[in-house]
């Protein structure tokens, strides 16, 4: 047991911090958020050159062969800098799923392109209604017709659908009535997408599949494995989202402490007021709890240990802890923090989106309860 980064992880962290401080200023984030695509192809290529898209892709597919725990470090830095763009979609939702469930041929087909920054992937998981984040909630059907599955239905909150080359799509197959994950090509005329305007500033879409044919060779992990594949996608995504959020709230804590040291009211730095000190202490506790529970889950994922409980704990804690951290940050920042001129809103808006993504605290409390044998 050692609850600190290794020297290699510290190096990765520093390198990522330096790169992002340089290339991903808040002015840049603001500009990209306001742009048509919400995406900078130039930055994407820079990241590919640093090997980020392939960080944990095995070397035989052109990647760096590092672990999920290393990716966690990188994601934390991305969260810290509010990096816009499809890294999460492409790597966490896309590449890791193919790595986890894909055949050798599928890996060969998709991963090198991802690593080189040439392919953008995403995942179509959520559906209309108030279902949970599990395989059982999937209703969109893919009917086997010869050698093609034919997908019809609506997926919601699909990130980066407007720039993705391939969409991994979680479906219910017919006639088998089991869950499966298929890789669809985004350019098909049978796919249409319409933008949703989200609090997080990320690009989410409603995606409609209208009898889209997908060859059965595009099935990830076999027709009987899909349910497990989807559950593992959600686990990885939940933890990866937590990693981003660790960076988010750590930065918020630092900004807030810095501000409390500088800002004077009543002729004293406000950080010398005991109530402000206790707010900051509470924030730090929430952040450290979030960091430790997140990295524990990431460590277990990287060790391929069963970790439904630990993932649920991390995401449930993060959902509420991040809310408290953000709220206190605003309270300490005062009025300037609720102006769009200030940077805090980037963190506030992303934190709420991240809380919602892949299940909130209520959802994961039920998972924890199940793991405790309470129902």
């Amino acid at each position, binding site marked *: 047991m050692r609850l600190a980064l290794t020297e290699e992880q510290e190096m990765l962290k520093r390198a990522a911090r330096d790169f992002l401080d340089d290339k991903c200023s808040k002015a840049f984030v603001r500009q990209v958020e306001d742009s048509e695509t919400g995406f900078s192809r130039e930055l994407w290529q820079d990241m590919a050159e640093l090997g980020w898209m392939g960080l944990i892709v095995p070397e035989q597919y052109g990647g760096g062969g590092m672990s999920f725990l290393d990716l966690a470090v990188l994601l934390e830095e991305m969260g810290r800098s509010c990096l816009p763009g499809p890294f999460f979609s492409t790597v966490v939702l896309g590449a890791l799923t193919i790595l986890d469930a894909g055949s050798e041929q599928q890996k060969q087909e998709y991963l090198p392109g991802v690593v080189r920054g040439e392919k953008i992937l995403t995942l179509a998981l959520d559906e209309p209604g108030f279902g949970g984040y599990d395989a059982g909630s999937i209703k969109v059907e893919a009917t086997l017709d010869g050698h093609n599955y034919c997908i019809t239905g609506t997926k919601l909150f699909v990130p980066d659908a407007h720039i993705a080359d391939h969409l991994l799509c979680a479906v219910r197959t017919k006639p088998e009535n089991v869950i499966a994950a298929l890789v669809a090509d985004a350019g098909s005329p049978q796919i249409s997408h319409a933008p*949703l*305007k989200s609090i997080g500033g990320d690009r989410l879409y409603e995606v409609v599949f209208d009898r889209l044919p997908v060859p059965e060779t595009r099935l990830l992990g076999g027709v009987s494995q899909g349910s497990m594949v989807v559950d593992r996608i959600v686990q990885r995504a939940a933890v990866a989202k937590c990693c981003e959020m660790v960076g988010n709230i750590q930065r918020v804590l630092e900004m807030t402490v810095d501000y409390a040291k500088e800002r004077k009211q009543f002729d004293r730095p406000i950080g010398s007021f005991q*109530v402000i000190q206790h707010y900051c202490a509470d924030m730090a506790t929430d952040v450290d709890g979030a960091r430790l529970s997140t990295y524990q889950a990431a460590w277990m994922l990287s060790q391929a240990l069963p970790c439904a409980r630990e993932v649920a704990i991390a995401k449930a804690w993060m959902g509420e802890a991040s809310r408290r951290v953000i709220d206190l940050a605003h309270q300490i920042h005062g009025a300037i923090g*609720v102006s769009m001129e200030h940077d*805090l*809103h980037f963190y506030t808006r992303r934190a*709420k989106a991240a809380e919602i993504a892949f299940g909130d605290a209520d959802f994961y409390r039920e998972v924890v309860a199940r793991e405790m044998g309470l129902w």
Partner: protein
Amino acid sequence: MDFGFTDEQNRFRHEVRSFLEEEIEKGHWEPACDAWIQGFNPEFTRRVAHRGWIGLTWPEEYGGQGRSHTDRLILTEEMLRFGAPAACHWFADRQVGGAILSFGSEELKREFLPRIARGEAYFGLGMSEPGAGSDLASLQTRAVEDGDYYTINGQKTWTSCAYFAHYFDVYARTDPEAPKHRGISEFIVDARSPGLSRIPMTDITGTEAWSDLFFDNVRVHKKYLIGQKDRGFYQVLHQLDYERSGMERIMGNYPLFEAVVQFSKENQLSLQPAVRSKLAQLEIEFEVGRLLGYRVTSVMEDGKTPNWESAMSKAYSTEFEKRLANVSMEILGPYGQLMSGSRLVPLRGMAPHSYLGSKGYSLQAGTTEILKNILATRGLGLPAA
């Protein structure tokens, strides 16, 4: 103890409610959160004035109706319940008019109060500055005497209604040598004054309801000084007690509360014990906040200035608003993240608006920290820190 209203009061509530329901039915406006501070609608203000509902408690000689604080409570409660766009007249009705009435010269009363009551004079507030928020006494805007005039230089921030306002209620330092609480004066500044400029700001919800105000040698005649020179800080404290005295905070997002309850019923979400428990808890907290607000009115009816009572009510209520927004977002699930104007957006995007907006509620009109300080020292008699 009497928690009831008289028949007459109930009739008045019914009258206000019918008026507002008719307004909505006619499509004049849609109920909205924060409409009392962000809903600028001069036509609505005119119709409200026509009913005699601006300056309701003021003496009739100044265009008011001489009615009770309880009547005004009923009026504002219904305005807030229906999310009515009352921002044009809200600030003058709530506090600037009262300041003029309490501290202003007879001339100022005659000049402004009737026009406010007729819905013809809108006021914005010039209190906060970038460096003077909680510590209002450290404000830097200067007003220098120059014959019959004062010349004002400086900056105010977070002024609501600035683009509609005809006047601003401005606090400026008139004696830079005096201890900082003792050198501030209050002025009425015409919005068209040369040298006064307004720059809109966008807040975290994306709303452009606020402005920075810049004063570059703005000249104000001495007759527009409200009350005594250098006594402005004590006047602003008094004004703040009234600023916090109403139901704005507990009901500022009432349209969201009503909508999310309705949504939960319609989508059968409230059959889930967790959902209905959250909504019931909100109802409980709302009721307590309502009573804390009513208590402030009851204190005023007893002829007292509410002080720690309105601090308590405001601090409590902004926390309620945060919980209302949180619960609404939780109930809406992934749909909660959709902003006003998006495809598929539920409840017209009121939930994320309120979630983001509520970060500022506990900062406006006295941060929660300042309010709790007031409650502890003035309400409970604890020694100053």
